[in-house]
């Protein structure tokens, strides 16, 4: 498996049921580092230098977060703002080159709401444009995109199934 960094951001994790179950799939996986942003930077003061230094050592980034008011959790947005440097793009030695990414988003709303003709009139991949675009501009290819709907009502066995699917697709062992 590729050396993986999981960037998990959940501002209200203590109320989560779905993610509580889902992040178990990262337990004890070799070659994988799990970063819980809200636990590591509760005061929103990100150690930029350290993050930049360490990000080089990974081959794959997994962004795992709940959808907050149709957007990224604020700390994840801040993390990207702080860590990704505009100067890199023109750099010879771009630290993010040759990495790929996976995105896992959990949403409370039903799947039919997130349709072009649904209540919200837009889709989750649409809403995640800013993230996918930021990654693309930095030469990171988004290989997998998982959107989970109705997350608060998923039963334990359903969550286990979803975990299994994601693990198989991402080859997390």
């Amino acid at each position: 498996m590729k050396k993986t960094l999981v960037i998990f951001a959940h501002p209200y994790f203590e109320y989560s049921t779905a993610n509580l179950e889902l992040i178990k799939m990262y337990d004890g996986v070799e070659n994988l580092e799990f970063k819980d942003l809200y636990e590591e930077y509760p005061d929103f003061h990100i150690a930029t230098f350290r993050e930049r230094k360490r990000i080089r050592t990974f081959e794959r980034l997994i962004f795992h977060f709940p959808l907050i008011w149709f957007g990224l959790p604020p700390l994840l947005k801040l993390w990207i703002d702080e860590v990704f440097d505009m100067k890199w793009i023109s750099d010879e030695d771009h630290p993010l080159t040759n990495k790929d990414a996976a995105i896992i988003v959990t949403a409370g709303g039903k799947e039919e709401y997130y349709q072009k003709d649904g209540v919200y009139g837009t889709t989750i991949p649409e809403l995640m444009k800013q993230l996918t675009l930021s990654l693309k501009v930095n030469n990171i290819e988004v290989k997998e995109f998982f959107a989970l709907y109705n997350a608060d009502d998923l039963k334990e066995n359903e969550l286990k199934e979803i975990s299994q699917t994601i693990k198989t697709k991402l080859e997390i062992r």
Partner: protein
Amino acid sequence: MNETSLAFTALIFLGAAIIMVPLVRKLGLSAVIGYILGGIIIGPFCLKLTGNDTDDIMHAGEFGVIMLLFLVGLEIEPRKFWTMRKRIIGMGLSQMVLTVVSLFLIFYVAKWRPDQALVAALCFALSSTAIVLQTLKEKNIFRTQAGEASFSILLFQDIAVIPILALLPIIAKKSADEENQILLQYLPDWLQPFSIILGVAALIFLGRYVFVPFLRYVSRSGMNELLAASSLFLVIGVSELMYAVGLSPALGAFLAGLMLANSEFRHELESQIEPFKGLLLAVFFVSVGSTINFFVIMQDPMFIFSTVIVVLLVKLLVLYGIGKFFKLKIDQNFLVAFALSQIGEFAFVLVNYSTQLYLLSPQLNAQLMAITAITMCVTPILLIINEKFIEPKKIFVKNMESESHEPIKKQRIIIVGFGFFGSTVGRLLRSTGTKATILDNDARRVNLLRSNGFKVYYGDATKPGMLRSAGAETADLLILCLDNFESNYSILEYAKKNFPQLKIFVRAKNRLEAYDFLNNGVDNIYRETLGTAVDMAVDVLKATGMRAYAARRLGRRFMLIDKAMVRKLAKEQLKDQVTFTLKDSLDQEAKLLAEDSHSFDESQWNDNEEYLN
């Protein structure tokens, strides 16, 4: 009895304990066995070292039992006690009745004299508070199902001693000699039967209106040894009072402890009485060993040992049945049955009293005494059998996992020092409903805080033992907020050595104190002069026109760098190059601060991993 002989006897008793206990502990047995063995060795049948003072020594030892119950009372809050009442009566009463009836029938069938059979049955139904509680404490299972059940049964037995004492003269068809009931004789006849209620009422009254104000008065004098004196005064005083009213002193001590369980002096009393209790209990067990009369055993070993086996079996079966009825988990049930199967120390008292009433012949007296002592020696062995052979069996494995170890909630946090600093910490914790045990040594402040609904205890935490009574053995976090560096430091050292599981948070005034804490392996250090000063600087920066967000980030970064610096300097300090590195660190800081966090010169950071945290 002259002084030297008493001192000499005490010396021998202590010597026996000191030599034997480490030996048995090495073998992995309970200390109680060691004491009893030590007693047997110094007794009249081995080394003949004990003189004629054994009765006095035994009497002193009984104070150990009294103090043990006082401490148990301190640990239980009255509310908790009240919720246990059904259990105490249910389990306790059924245990007494069933055991007495079955033993009486067996003895009767074995052609004992009916009155003697009844007396023996009554004496043998009791279990040993001292041995069981000591074992529960040793194994740290006081707060399990088994612990609570054992305690309920023992407590009922202690209460039952009173009516049994009253019953014995009736069995003997003699009027009780009221030698030791001095106070009662001054009461009118119609009041005498109510002596129990009167004694308890007096105790409750004393606990409410006398003990606590009295302790407050003493604590204000600020003399520690006075508190030790008044603790002892209380316990001994109460037991003597009970004696005078004709109640069981142990029960009185328990009630006194119960009355003081909610007061701020709880931990202080505990830490003062604890050493006396341990010592006197040791003496008690040694004296049990030394009073086993081997001549009596040798005269009729069949009778003695068959009785021992019968008594143990009956008690075991009754206890097991009650446990099943009260739905104890199977492993807990075995533990209770094995732990409470011996005959208690009150049997010594009751047997002697019955002999005075001419109910028992001196020979039978000696035999019953021997039987009692033997069952006491068997208990630790039974418990080992339980631990080694019964508990590991498959049926128990599931239970052991699901067993909850906390019916009585012990608080997990201890805060030491509740002045301006500690109280801020405590108030924030309280706002989230996080409970903490708070220790402070200013009696007036403790009083004020308690009236505001804080759980604060009076005591000097720098004294070894105080932390232990505050529950440091089972706590998770220790928060040291004392003003005085030396006090914080000495508590820290003591805690690190004795309670390695504690995570320690400590208040420091400045860098120099922080160095010492760091070099002692503490990671959570809170410098008074850092956070607030940085907050101030950030506000000043804002006032000079800097954007608030930029100022805050700068402040945060400064804090991180400063902490990293202190860590580095603490190491340097060990090498004694403070002046050089201090200057060095100031230069570094200036350099680092000159950088805005958006200028990313990574080369500067690559080798400085510790600043990145």
